[in-house]
């Protein structure tokens, strides 16, 4: 009978399928939860805290955690709890801006190279090779020293230098996708180049791009803390986690909590992003689609 030939399971869209797989991964969910919590804490926290991040009570400097000061105070008597939250704003903002910048530059570069192919592709990739020859952190330091120290220069420096990984990735994806049938079909239907790129290539290459983006964020946080340690961080009284950690480092043996809290923040955020990234990679990998 006709009824027996019907397919019984309903078709699932790719994204829904991916989300289902993601949900099944407990570590990834945990990571996501932590991130959401941190973001909320960073942006809303300072509004409910008792002290502002810049209020100094110099006489109460370097006090250990207590009922009044949940994370203790720093060398100028400022509330470390609020400062860690504010630091979260800065560090996360830097990381996200840098990530988006890498995204923009890297995707454009890689897409062009992959699409054009041939000599242009070769040339563009040689440039990437050359850039990669020198440890990119060197460029970041150079740039940060030259631009005025501060928030803008940091994310500019990171974003302008770390896009090579994204570019390679996008190019590889584009190369692979270029020859697939849906592209052939689109071209046959008369789509122009930008349509090809934006409506067809990019959405299909999205998976590795998103994963790469997720991993680039903790890298940016690390680089930012590295820059802060050598004095190239955001200017006072603003503080990122990197700045707080380097300030706390000096007093490690006397007031360990001043390092412990910002360091824990960095570590947890990095872990969270890594778990989410792993989860996304597994979830979005079409090969694993069952």
């Amino acid at each position: 009978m006709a009824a027996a030939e019907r397919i019984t399971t309903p078709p699932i869209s790719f994204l829904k399928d991916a989300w289902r797989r993601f949900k099944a991964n407990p570590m990834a969910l945990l990571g996501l939860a932590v991130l959401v919590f941190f973001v909320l804490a960073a942006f809303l926290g300072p509004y409910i805290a008792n002290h502002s991040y810049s209020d100094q009570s110099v006489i109460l400097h370097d006090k250990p955690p207590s009922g009044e000061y949940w994370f203790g105070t720093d060398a100028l008597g400022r509330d470390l709890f609020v400062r860690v939250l504010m630091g979260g704003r800065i560090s996360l903002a830097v990381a996200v801006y840098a990530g988006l910048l890498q995204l923009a530059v890297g995707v454009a570069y890689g897409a062009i190279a992959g699409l054009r192919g041939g000599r242009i592709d070769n040339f563009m990739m040689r440039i990437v090779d050359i850039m990669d020859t020198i440890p990119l952190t060197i460029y970041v330091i150079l740039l940060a020293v030259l631009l005025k120290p501060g928030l803008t220069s940091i994310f500019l420096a990171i974003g302008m230098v770390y896009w090579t990984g994204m570019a390679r990735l996008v190019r590889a994806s584009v190369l692979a996708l270029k020859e697939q049938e849906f592209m052939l079909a689109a071209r046959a239907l008369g789509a122009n180049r930008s349509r090809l790129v934006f409506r067809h290539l990019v959405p299909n290459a999205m998976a590795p791009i998103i994963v790469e983006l997720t991993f680039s964020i903790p890298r940016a946080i690390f680089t930012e803390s590295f820059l802060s340690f050598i004095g190239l961080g955001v200017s006072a009284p603003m503080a990122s986690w990197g700045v707080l950690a380097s300030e706390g480092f000096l007093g490690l043996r006397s007031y360990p909590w001043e390092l412990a809290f910002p360091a824990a923040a960095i570590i947890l955020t990095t872990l969270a992003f890594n778990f989410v990234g792993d989860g996304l990679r597994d979830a979005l990998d079409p090969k694993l689609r069952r």
Partner: protein
Amino acid sequence: MARYILQRVITMLVVAWVVVTLTFFMMKALPGGPFASEKKLPEAILKNIERRYKLDRPIMEQYFDYLKNVVVWDLGPSFKYEGRTVNDVINKGFSVSAKLGGLSILVSLLLGVPIGVIAAMRHNGLIDRTVSGLAMLTAAAPSFVISGLLQYFLAFKLKWFPPATWGTPKHMILPILALCSFSLAWLIKLTRSSMLEVTSQDYVRTARAKGIPEFWVIFRHMLRNALVPVIASVAPLTAGVLVGSFIIEFIFAIPGIGREFVISIQNRDYTVTLGMTVFYGFLLTGFTLVGDILTAFVDPRVRLDKEG
């Protein structure tokens, strides 16, 4: 094979040349020449210095002079530390950093690969989970945090090791541990995932089906392929170690090259910065070359693939 090596060497030389050229012109274009910060040097002295360092020649002549000097490996004098040459700075610093970096990478490889293999073989078992977890944790902490903790617990509280400086093997342990924390974790993760990918391949299943002992399966069949990405990453790993060493060198007061580099940028000691960038460039293209050759040995597909 020989053709492949030749190809790679030529590419390396071209890349090196581009790096030198780019960095040279970049340095020249930067604002504030090398003596901008000297206290209002009278023009006559500036002229003297420029004459001495040949800075008054036309820029292309300076460029070719510099290229010639690079070939014979004379990187010029340091402008900030009177009487020192860049070669001097690099030589003294590098012999220390090389030991630090080299030993770190060695430790990372010797520990990381076997641990990664074990973790993969015991996929999702207790060892795997613990190892992966620890690896993630250490990789998630910035290097100065790890250095600080190592100094605090092992040097200050337990007094097992001296907290700083360089010299005897005892001095080397803490900085090496701090430096290899990241690369160790990374290698473990990479080896593990690579082994996992290989383990589900057909040829492995065939080998097992044939009844070959697991040890041979790993050693003869899996490792060779699984290690390809590991070997390929030794070059960027070295790069990371070289740069990451800056903070380690600062905290542990080690007279290495990483610290010199950052200080030279801060001091606007242009010749030193330039010389070190060139040096790094050569070093890393060299490592990439070695990595590529090793990969070619291990994986025949690479040799035949002309696409870079």
